[in-house]
């Protein structure tokens, strides 16, 4: 596609439930990133994929968060046993080596009630 696509755009879930957030990067971009943004803050790094493997997952806050990219394209961020503090906008970005920078999607706004 022309840009990074994230679905759903909004997700409301109950505390304790499991959620999946999807990211479809720009075709051919080998690097994929997940960030989380709370109100009034800059995006906070979660995890970075190079191809199919997670090259850096140091930003994942705890083991309730997990992400996969099985075929080196689409990625899914999975959150188990959601908590109200997980409420934020989850941003996905992709890039290629030698490119000027990331291309971000519009994000998924997750609200845990």
């Amino acid at each position, binding site marked *: 596609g022309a840009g*990074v696509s994230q679905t759903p755009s909004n997700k409301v879930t109950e505390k304790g439930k499991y959620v999946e957030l999807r990211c479809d990067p720009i075709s051919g971009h080998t*690097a994929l*990133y997940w*960030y989380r943004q709370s109100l*009034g*803050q*800059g*995006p*906070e*790094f979660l995890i*970075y994929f190079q191809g199919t493997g997670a090259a*850096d997952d140091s*930003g994942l806050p705890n083991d309730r968060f997990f992400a996969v990219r099985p075929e080196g394209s689409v990625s899914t961020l999975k959150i188990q046993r959601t908590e109200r503090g997980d409420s934020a906008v989850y*941003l996905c*970005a992709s*890039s*290629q*080596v*030698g*490119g*000027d*920078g*990331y*291309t*971000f*999607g*519009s*994000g998924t706004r997750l609200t845990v009630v």
Partner: protein
Amino acid sequence: LAKTTQPISMDSYEGQEVNITCSHNNIATNDYITWYQQFPSQGPRFIIQGYKTKVTNEVASLFIPADRKSSTLSLPRVSLSDTAVYYCLVGGLRGYSTLTFGKGTMLLVSP
């Protein structure tokens, strides 16, 4: 990762030139300086990237002094649609590194 410091907010009027300065005293030799723009309900958008001296594109100019400990994003003749948060970041290989965002500079352009 090098830390950046930039003003929390700036105000301007339509048609004026806006300069946003960012300090990054601990920038590493292989770090690039990148600026992103973010509108509400959207992800950040790449504006410009540079390593040293001056870079100009159709949107902005980036000025980097010889010591690279600071940089200035220059937006010529801003319009209302330039109201956004602007982030200054430093990081490694172009387009291929984990970036650390600060809180950014909220630029408000008024009529």
